[in-house]
Structures are given as C-alpha cells and as structure tokens.
C-alpha cells in the first residue's frame, strides 16, 4: 500500500460557520503538509474566504478544530483566547488580503507598515528595523526610494507587494493568501503571482491559497480542495482537478476556466 502520508503542519476538521441563516462553511476539513501550499477554489459565496478568516482568527467558527503543529507543539487555533490569538498572528500566522487596504495602513509609509509586525514581535532597534524593512522591500521589488512614501500613494500592484513583505516579515509558519492577485491588471497580477510563488518556494512556509481562479491555484499549489455553498465537493491534485475533475460543479469551474488557461 501507499507509504504513510507525511505529517501535517495544519489539520482542519469539521469547520462550520453560519452567518445568521446563511451558511458560511459547513464541515470543511483538510490537512496541509509542512512547506506545502494547499489551494482552496470556489466562486464568490462558496465559503473559501470564510474558511481562511476562521483560521486567521478574524471570524469565530461555530464548530471544528484547526490544529497547527510547530515541532512538538500542537495548538488548536479555534481554542485560543484573544491575547493568545493576537500573539500567534504576530509570530506565527500571517494573512494577505485581496484588498491591500485591509492588511496595510495606507496613511503611513511602506517602511512603517513593515515595521509594525517587527515592533509587535519585540524589535526595538530603529536601525535594525529599517535594515530589515529595506531587505524585505528589496525582496518584493519595491523601489527603495519609495520606502518612506505613504502606501496610499502606491499603485495596486505595489501595495500588494508591500502587503506580502509585511506578511513574511516575521517568517511566519503559516501564510494565508486570500485572492492575492484578484483585482490587479493582468500583467501586474502575473508579476505578483511570480513573486508569491518564489516566496513560497524560498521560505518553505506552509500556505493556504484561496482563489476563484484555477490558473492562480495551479501555479501556486500541487493539491487543492473545491468548495461550493460552503461545502467541500472535491479534493485532489491540482492538475487532476484540471484534467479530470470528478464532481459536476468542479467540471463546470474547469470548463469556465478553460478559456483563460
């Protein structure tokens, strides 16, 4: 039989969330291996963002567990109190939102935005914070002469690059990406997508990538789950989901994506 599956870094089971009478997500579960990026595909309203927000701690789930393993330690992300969750969001879990305005303060500089998580993690030396911010901005290809400009003056693609730099500032163990290229012009989106892929490969961070776009998912992840109406309808290898989708809804999604692939 198959070799025992390699260990998981993140294990989500029975995740459910209702918004009043509307189902956010229902009984969602998956495992992500250390250093693996798992894709979550679905249309608007499929529940994919709800799943991500629950794991990030932005939204309180009704039921389920999300176990995060770091070395010998396992924490249930859904059982943390406020201070514990905030501490984990600084040291361990980072999220990149579709809208950079959600992840950044547009009224402060790029360098200031990146300094924020560093200071929260205990960095105190101004020179070292500046040096780290410079290093991160260089990594995401933001010109260093823009470091002290307000992020509000940046283009959409540049804002997203700053948000990525901020997200990886403390070398998180888990990176959550919510439609990270949606809304950007095609050429800009392609550049940001390349950057994300390079960051995932270089840092070997465990990641969840949420997107409605099969192309994004297939470039960033080797496995993915398909959500519809808050429920998982299929899980598989990304190229198998594209080549040989099993579920009726996955087949529709792929047929719709074919034009752009």
């Amino acid at each position, binding site marked *: 039989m198959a*070799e025992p599956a390699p260990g998981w870094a993140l294990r989500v089971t029975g995740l459910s969330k209702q918004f009043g009478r509307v189902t956010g997500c229902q009984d969602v579960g998956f495992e992500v*291996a250390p250093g693996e990026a798992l894709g979550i595909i679905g249309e608007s309203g499929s529940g994919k963002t709800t799943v991500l927000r629950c794991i990030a701690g932005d939204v309180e789930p009704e039921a389920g567990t999300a176990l995060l393993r770091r070395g010998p330690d396992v924490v249930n992300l859904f059982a943390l109190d406020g201070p514990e969750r905030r501490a984990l969001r600084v040291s361990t879990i980072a999220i990149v939102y579709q809208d950079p305005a959600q992840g950044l303060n547009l009224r402060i500089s790029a360098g200031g935005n990146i300094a924020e998580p560093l200071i929260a993690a205990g960095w105190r030396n101004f020179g070292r914070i500046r040096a780290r911010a410079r290093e991160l901005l260089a990594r995401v290809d933001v010109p260093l002469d823009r470091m002290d400009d307000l992020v509000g003056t940046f283009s959409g693609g540049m804002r997203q690059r700053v948000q990525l730099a901020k997200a990886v500032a403390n070398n998180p163990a888990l990176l959550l990406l919510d439609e990270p290229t949606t809304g950007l012009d095609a050429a800009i989106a*392609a550049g940001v*997508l390349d950057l994300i892929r390079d960051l995932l490969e270089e840092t070997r961070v465990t990641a969840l990538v949420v997107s409605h776009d099969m192309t994004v998912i297939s470039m960033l992840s080797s496995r993915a789950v398909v959500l519809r109406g808050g429920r998982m309808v299929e899980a598989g290898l990304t190229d*198998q989901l594209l080549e*040989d989708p099993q579920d009726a809804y996955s087949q529709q999604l792929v047929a719709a994506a074919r034009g752009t692939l």
Partner: protein
Amino acid sequence: MVSEAVLTVRGLHKQFVIHAIGRQVPALRGVDLTVGAGQHVALVGPSGAGKSTLLKCVWRSCLPSAGEVWLRRRDSTAVDLAAADDRAVVEVRRHDIAYVSQFLRPDGRRSVLEVVGRAAIRRGLEPAGATAAAAAALRRVRLEEELWKTQPAVLSGGEQQRVNLAAGTLCPPRLLLLDEPVAALDSGHRETVLALISGLCRAGVSVLSVFHDLDAVRLLADRVVVMRDGQVAAEGSPDETLEPASAGGAR
C-alpha cells in the same frame, strides 16, 4: 505485489463521467502492462485508443476508475498510484516519476534557465547546483544558449518541447512518461532527443511512451503495446507488432 518490474498495471479501467451531458465515456477497459527497469515500452494505436489516458492514470492527473498501478520506487518500496493519497503522489512525483507532454505548463514569466532550474530544486538539488544542472540539461537537448534568458512562452513549439524534456530528465527519474516528445521537432533536434531518451534507458530509467512517429518506436522501444478501444490488442517486440519501416501503421 510480486513483480519486480518498475511499473505494473493491472486491470486498469478509466471511465470519464461528464455530468453536463450525463454521459460516461470509457477510455480504458482493463489494461494490464509491465515496464521493467531500464526498459522502454511504447504505446501505439489509433487516436482515442487510450494511450495518453493510460499515461495520465500513471501520472495521476487522471483518476483511475478501477485497477492497480504499482510503482517500484527508488528505495524499492512499492506504491499503488491508483489508491495512494494525493500527498503520497506528490512525493512520488518529486522523487520517482517525470511526465513530459508536448505541451508546456504555464510557468509565469520565468526564463528558460529558471524554469529548468526550479525543476531541479523540486527534485531536491540545492539552488547552487540547480542552475548548473539546468544548464547541462539544456545543453543536452541542444537549446541555444541565447534563448536561456527568454521566457518559454515566446519560444517555438520545438524549443518549448526541448525545455520540457530538459526539465523532465535533468535528474533521471525512475520512470519517465513521454507523450509525443518529438512531435514538434525538426529532424536534427529529433535525433538529439531520441539519443537522450535511449541514453536514459541505458542508464536504468524505465520509459513508457506514446510516439506518433513509429520510426522512433522501432529505434527506441524494447517492447510495443498496441492499444485499441481502451484495451491491449497486441504486445511484442517492434518487429512483431509494427509494419516494416516506412510502411507505417500498427498491424
């Protein structure tokens, strides 16, 4: 699992269920097949016979409906790819199998050298050694060095195919799956690629291939499996199964 073969396919069925039109399309109907270490087995037969589907079922970009696909791994453990969980398949792809089709997967805006270098890193090479390995692989397929810094998307079909081959063969896999690897190549580059494939077999790589070009099959294959309607219709040496050279067509 008794066989020592690198690949043992047993009773493989594949049925595509197309929900939108409520149809079931049988593609494979009970295929048995083995590929030994360093052996090259070529699949031939008319379009729609199931050749590419069989390769994809081994690569697991298609999910087999029934049957077994046993792979003897480099560490000599065996895994049934028809039943293995997705993460186990990811591991097998990283270490033991390569799949080269005539189509290049979209790879963003990376250069040719980066695309092939990334493939080396995925196979476990250190970044420092990966670029050198990529350069060597690109030289083996005789891709002109001035193209190494360009994006694959702007290359010709034949050049893209050689990039694909370089990426698929730079760290010799246990099993190489080839779907029309010389389809877009001119005769000079075709010779280069055929020599590369035959060299890999001599070095112990097992190959399961689909070639439109039956002269390539005669030249390279140890064994030919003739497929028709999703089944094995005949099996034997190239001489036993193919018409004499240049007459063309499987018997």
